[in-house]
């Protein structure tokens, strides 16, 4: 498990990270969200040792993370970059070896990943001759080529079209085994909701929410949504609930007493057609807005 413990970072007078603590669990994708400047990239750079922490530490399997272990991590930085004038095959083999693979293994892994990304026939091309989308694919290949023991991806999907995002997400699922913790930051919340198991929300350098996406999305109270073909105004007189909003046949209410929602459904059915009924899932964007406000 990768643990970020009490990370604090100052840039002069500016407190960029303030006691940031969270876990990235193996085999689960952890989404890392927050407004611009919240400290996501700073956190990731400290995890990778590119930046030093003012206080706190990064731990790996309950021990402080060392340079040797970190060599086996995979990293895709926010600012993309590979060697523009190097052939992509040479480039991936180089990064594989830099991360500790022997030459044969690095070559084999390179061929496999390039094939998987549909870039096999471009292997001898110089990177800068590829389209931006393909360069992005090579970038993610560079993070995966050495079979990393942990992955840190800073905005891995930015700038990709939906099809490319799907292809990349598939690749991640295929390449990332159950022992590998994955942390990835994104501002595309729908994507995070779709791909991630856990979520860490950062605001102004502090963790404001963390946990499984399913739990966070369920919300703290049980909110239900009812849509009928008539008027739903009668809900205002029902006991045991708190109506949030009624507009024509659509109502949103919080259940205060257990099981009262079943009675409401029965009542609604006797009054007419029920078009929709169920617990209201809170969109991630609402959690995000709520948490970072």
């Amino acid at each position, binding site marked *: 498990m990768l643990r970020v413990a009490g990370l604090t970072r100052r840039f002069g007078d500016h407190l960029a990270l303030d006691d940031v603590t969270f876990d990235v669990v193996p085999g689960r994708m952890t989404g890392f969200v927050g407004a611009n400047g919240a400290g996501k990239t700073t956190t990731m*750079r400290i995890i*990778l*040792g*590119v*930046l*030093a922490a003012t206080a706190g530490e990064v731990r790996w399997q309950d021990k402080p993370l060392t*340079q*040797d272990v*970190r*060599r*086996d*991590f995979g*990293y895709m*930085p926010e*600012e*993309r*970059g*590979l*060697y*523009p004038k*190097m052939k992509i095959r040479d480039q991936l083999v*180089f*990064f594989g*070896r*830099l*991360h*500790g*693979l*022997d030459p044969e*293994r690095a070559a084999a892994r390179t061929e496999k990943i390039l094939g998987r990304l549909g870039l096999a026939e471009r292997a001898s091309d110089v990177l800068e001759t590829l389209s931006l989308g393909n360069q992005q694919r090579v970038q993610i290949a*560079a993070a995966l080529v050495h079979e990393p023991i942990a992955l840190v991806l800073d905005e891995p999907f930015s700038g990709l079209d939906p099809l490319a995002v799907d292809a990349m997400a598939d690749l991640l699922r295929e390449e990332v085994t159950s022992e590998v913790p994955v942390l990835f930051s994104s501002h595309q919340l729908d994507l995070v909701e779709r791909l991630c198991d856990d979520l860490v929300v950062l605001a102004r350098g502090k963790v404001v929410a963390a946990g499984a996406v399913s739990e966070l999305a369920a919300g703290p109270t049980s909110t239900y949504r009812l849509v009928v073909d008539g008027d739903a105004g009668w809900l205002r007189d029902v006991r045991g609930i708190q109506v949030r909003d009624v507009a024509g046949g659509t109502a949103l209410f919080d259940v205060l007493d257990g099981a009262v929602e079943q009675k409401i459904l029965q009542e609604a059915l006797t009054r007419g057609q029920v078009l929709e009924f169920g617990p209201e899932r809170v969109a991630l964007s609402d959690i995000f807005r709520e948490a970072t406000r």
Partner: protein
Amino acid sequence: MKTLDKPWVLIAEREITTKLRDKTFIGSTLVMLLIVMVAVILPAILAGKGGPDKIGVIDDAGLKVVQTASVTAGGDGYEATRFSDRPAAEKAVTDGKVKAALLPDADGYVVLGKDRVDSGVEGALREAAAAVGMETNAGKAGLTPAELHAGTKVSLQLLKPGPLPDIVSDFVNIGLALVFYMTALGFGMMIAQSVVQEKESRVVEILAAAVPIRSLLWGKVLGNTVLALTQIVVIAGASLIGLLATDQADILEVVAPVAGWFVVFFVLGFVALAGLWAVAGSLATRQEDLGSTTLPGQMILMIPFFFSVFAGSSAKTVASFVPIASSMSMPGRMLTEDVPVWQPLVAIALLLAATVLIVRMGARLYERTLLQTGRRLGYREALALESK
């Protein structure tokens, strides 16, 4: 660790293979090779070692003069070509078949040329004609040639003989300083460029995450030092072949003992500067910044270079102890003067100390500035930075 690959070895390897595939690098090396070959071979050709000059004659007396001139010149300087009469010899001169013709005249000989006669040829023939004539005259007067020449021999004795003649010394001094200057500057700029390219393309972030930043520096310094030494060895090899091919092998006897010293001075000086050039690259954020960040490096090279070329001999002696300047002037001094062995040893010790110092400071600056991609930094500013 999955394997034994040291990161700095990989970085050095990439540095070397990238350069070897770079057409500009290969091209400039070939041009340099060509220039050196021409410089080695051309003097030999100009000195007339390209075979004997043909001189036309029409009688036995002329033949004897040309043979005498040839013997004086070392055996194969001139070759006589016999013609039947004066018009035939004139035609051969006009057609360029012979360099000149030596014809009998009322009171001796006349040297016949087309539009001009080489002063060397003229002098040699004049001297030979005089010698032959005098011997003939001496015979008539009853003297043997030995009696004739008694007491006229002049020999040369030097009180402080140097290994090489003066003019050659100057060339060797400037040449060796130039080799170091050009190589250190050329490869220095390449190191700075390679660093700033990694910053510009942002690949440095991935590199720094994978391996310690010091490994990046060491890899670059090692890779480029190997390349620079290889380039010099290739060029030295080419000039060696050139010297052997043109019968100038005697120069080698003088150069060979100093070659080892040159390598030591070269490597130490080069490594010290390489650290500095890498810092110049890491202070910059774009290629355009290199002009200003490499200025100190250029000065450190340029000032000692002009000093070692133009300074007087006692100033040169001082310069040959100053680190970096010593890389340019000590090997040259050792070639052209008698330098006691303690002098290069002291110079190397000083250079070594300076190299360690410069490289250590360079590594510190490099670590602090490599990941600063925002804007160009100054040296003073970089020294004040905290690490990471």
